[in-house]
C-alpha cells in the first residue's frame, strides 16, 4: 500500500544528506518525477523527484535534519497492493538490491563445489606414489629423528604424513610395561660411549617420563584361580573353537570399564586447567610380543567383542604386528591396556600406564601353585595379575571393585558367555 522511498546515494559515495526544504506535504497528491524535497550533500544541493505517483503519507524527517543513505525519506501511498510477506522490500529498489531470477545464459549445472569460497587451495591430490607428502615442519622433524618418510604411513588428508604419524611409526609401545625376555641376539647390544637419545628410543623415553612424572601409580597384586579359565579353553578346543585367557581378560576388562567409566578415562591439562576426560569408546591396547620386542596395538571398540571374536581379533592383530603390517591408527586411541607378559614368563610386574589412560592390567604366567582348599594344600593353576591405576582418579575402593569385576569374570568365565 505504500511505497517507501529511501534516501539514495546520489553523489558517488555519499552517506548522508541534510533535508533543506520539503516541497510536498502529507496528504498531498503527487505525480511521478514531481520534486519532493531539496537535500544538501557535501557535493551539491539536489531536488529528489518522486519515483511514483500517489498521496504523500509521511515525511521521513524535519527540515534541517540529516538522514543517512538508506533511511526512509518519504512514504507514498501509490495504490498498489501489498505483497504478502514482503511489504516494502521489493518496492524500494536500487541497483544493488535487485535479486534477479534465472540466468543470462543457460543455467550451469551447479558443478559440485570443490571449495566453499572462491579459489581456496585445491583439494589435496592423493599421493601419486612417487614421494611421500608431509609439511615442511614434519619433514624437519623426520630429519631430526632420522626417520625415512618412505617408511611411515600417512594418516593425514590425502595420505599426508603428520607429526603424529612420525610418533606412531617410532613408538613400539607408549609405555613398555615390563622388561622383556627375548631370544634376539641384538637385545641390549650397544657400543660404549655417548649416543644421542632420539628416534625410537627417544620417543619411548619421552613417553615413559611423561607417564612416570604425571600419573601417580598405585598397583594391586594378586593371583586368581585359573582352573575354570583353562577348562573353558580346553572344552572350546574340543568343539573346534578358540578361546584364550587373554581374550577372556579383554572381555572382562571391557565389562569392568563399562561398569566403572571413571577408569576408562584420563586427566588432561587444558587452557582452563586440568580436566577429567572420560572416553566414550573402550579401546584396548594389547601388548604383543614380536621379534623386535613388545608392541601394543589397539583393539578399537573392544567392548563389542565376545570371547570368540576377541580371540580372533587378538590373533589377527598379533599376526599383523609380527609381519609389520600395522597401520598408524592401530597404535592410537587406547583407553586401557592389557599386557600379557606372562606369555613370555614372569609373575609380578609394575606396569606403567600409558599417557591418556587411567589403568592397566598385567597378567603373568599361569602356573600350578599350592593353595589351601578346605583346609588342604592342593595344586591349582594360578594366574598372577596386577592392576595399575592412576591414583588421581582411582581410589582404593574403586580399584578394588574394578579388580573384583575382572577377577570374578576370569575366575568363572561362563559369566561372560551368558552376560551378553
Amino acid at each position: 500500500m505504500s511505497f517507501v522511498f529511501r534516501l539514495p546515494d546520489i553523489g558517488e559515495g555519499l552517506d548522508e544528506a541534510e533535508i533543506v526544504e520539503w516541497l510536498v506535504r502529507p496528504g498531498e497528491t503527487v505525480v511521478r518525477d514531481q520534486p519532493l524535497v531539496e537535500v544538501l550533500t557535501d557535493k551539491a544541493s539536489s531536488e529528489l523527484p518522486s519515483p511514483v505517483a500517489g498521496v504523500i503519507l509521511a515525511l521521513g524527517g524535519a527540515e534541517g535534519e540529516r538522514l543517512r543513505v538508506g533511511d526512509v525519506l518519504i512514504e507514498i501511498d501509490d495504490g498498489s497492493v501489498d505483497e504478502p510477506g514482503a511489504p516494502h522490500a521489493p518496492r524500494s529498489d536500487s541497483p544493488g538490491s535487485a535479486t534477479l531470477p534465472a540466468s543470462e545464459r543457460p543455467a550451469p549445472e551447479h558443478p559440485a563445489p570443490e571449495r566453499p569460497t572462491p579459489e581456496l587451495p585445491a583439494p589435496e591430490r592423493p599421493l601419486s606414489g612417487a614421494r611421500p607428502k608431509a609439511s615442511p615442519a614434519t619433514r624437519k622433524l623426520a630429519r631430526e629423528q632420522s626417520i625415512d618418510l618412505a617408511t611411515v604411513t600417512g594418516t593425514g588428508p590425502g595420505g599426508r604424513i603428520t607429526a603424529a604419524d612420525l610418533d606412531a611409526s617410532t613408538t613400539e609401545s607408549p609405555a613398555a610395561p615390563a622388561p622383556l625376555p627375548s631370544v634376539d641376539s641384538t637385545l641390549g647390544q650397544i657400543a660404549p660411549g655417548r649416543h644421542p637419545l632420539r628416534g625410537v628410543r627417544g620417543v619411548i623415553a619421552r613417553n615413559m617420563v611423561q607417564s612416570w612424572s604425571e600419573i601417580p601409580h598405585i598397583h594391586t597384586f594378586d593371583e586368581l584361580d585359573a582352573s575354570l579359565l583353562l577348562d573353558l579353553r580346553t572344552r572350546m578346543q574340543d568343539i573346534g573353537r578358540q578361546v584364550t585367557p587373554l581374550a577372556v581378560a579383554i572381555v572382562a576388562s571391557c565389562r569392568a570399564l563399562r561398569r566403572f567409566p571413571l577408569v576408562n578415562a584420563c586427566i588432561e591439562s587444558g587452557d582452563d586447567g586440568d580436566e577429567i576426560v572420560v572416553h566414550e569408546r573402550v579401546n584396548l591396547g594389547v601388548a604383543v610380543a614380536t621379534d623386535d620386542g613388545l608392541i601394543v596395538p589397539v583393539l578399537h571398540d573392544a567392548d563389542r567383542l565376545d570371547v570368540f571374536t576377541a580371540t580372533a581379533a587378538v590373533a589377527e592383530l598379533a599376526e599383523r604386528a609380527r609381519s609389520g603390517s600395522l597401520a598408524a591408527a592401530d597404535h592410537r586411541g587406547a583407553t586401557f591396556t592389557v599386557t600379557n607378559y606372562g606369555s613370555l614368563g614372569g609373575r609380578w610386574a609394575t606396569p606403567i600406564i600409558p599417557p591418556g589412560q587411567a589403568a592397566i592390567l598385567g597378567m603373568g604366567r599361569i602356573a600350578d601353585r599350592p593353595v589351601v582348599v578346605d583346609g588342604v594344600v592342593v595344586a591349582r593353576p594360578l594366574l598372577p595379575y596386577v592392576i595399575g591405576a592412576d591414583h588421581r582418579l582411582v581410589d582404593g575402593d574403586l580399584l578394588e571393585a574394578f579388580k573384583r569385576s575382572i577377577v570374578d569374570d576370569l575366575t568363572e568365565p561362563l559369566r561372560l558367555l551368558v552376560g551378553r
Partner: protein
Amino acid sequence: MARPTDEQRREMLVDMVTARVQSQRIFNLQRQGRVGTMAPVDGHEATIVGAAHALDTDHDWVLPQYREPIALRRYGPEMLEHVMLYNIGHPAGGHIPAPIRVLPYQISLATQIPHAVGLAWGLTLQDDPGVVLVFFGDGSSSEGDFYEAGNLAGVLGAPVIFLCVNNQWAISTPVHLQTAAESFAAKAAAFGFPGIQIDGNDVDAVYDAVQTARTRALAGKGPTLIEAVVYRLGPHTTADDPTRYVPAEDLEAARRSDPIKRLRTELETAGLWDDDVQAEVEEAALAALDAALEKARSTPLAPDAMLDHCYTTDTQRLARQRAGLLAEAGPGGSAR
C-alpha cells in the same frame, strides 16, 4: 550544401525531444537511487541527432563517448535497451547486438579515437563501404590519444569523421584553460586534413557537415575534423554541481539557444509540429524508457556472470574461481 528534408527534420526533432525527455527521466532515476552516475544530454541533441541522421546506419559506425548513446535512437530500439542495462549497472549493458554498428559507452576519455581510426582502416581493407564517426569532447581533445589517432588517420587517409562536441566545459574546466589553440577545429592542421567549426545547435549545419565529411571519406579523400559548438545546459554528470563554476548569465544565454526550442520553433512555423505532437512524442519516449527499464531490471543475472567473456574459454584458474563462486552462491544461487 546537403540539406535534410522536412521529413528528416521532423524525425530529427522526434529523436531530439525523445533524447531530452529520456535523459531527464534517467537523471531522476539516479536521484531515486535506481541507476548509477549518468551524463545528461541537454544541449547536445542537435549535434548527436543531426550527425546520426547524416549517416547510413547499415554501414557507418558510431563510436560514442558517454553522453551520446541516449540520442542514437536512429540506430535502433536496441540502443535504449543498451542504455538502460548499462545505467542499472548490469553486465549485459556492454553488449550491443550485431549488426548494430555502435560501440558501447567509453569511460576512458579519448581512447575510442584510435579505435575509430583502426576501425575505419579495417573497413577499407575489407572494401566495406562505411565510415566511422567518433564523438569526443573538448576535454578529450587534450588527451594524447586524440593527437596520435588524428595523426595516424591523416597518414592512412582513413574514412573517419572526428566529431568534437565542444560544449565549453570539461567538468569545471572552461575551454580557454583546455587549449590555447584558436579552435579545436584548427588542430586538424597538425594532422593534415580539414577541420571545420560549426554551430552544433543547428541540425542543418550538423547534417551538412557530417554528410560532406562522409562523402569525402567514401571518395577516398580521408578524414575530417568537425568541431560542433554547443553549450552544456545541464551538469557534467549527476555527481556534478555546475552552479559552483558556470556563470549564471552564460547559462541563461545558452538556454535561449536551446537546440530543441530552435528546431521546434522552425517546425511549428512550417506547420510540422504542435503541442499535441510534442505531448505524444514525450509520452511515447517515457513509455519506451519505462519499458526498457523494466526489461533491463528483469534481465537475468547468473551468479557467475561477472566471470564471463574475459577469455573465449576460462583459463584453469578462472574455471576454479567460477566453481568457487558458484559454490558460494549455493544451489539455485541468486546474484549477490
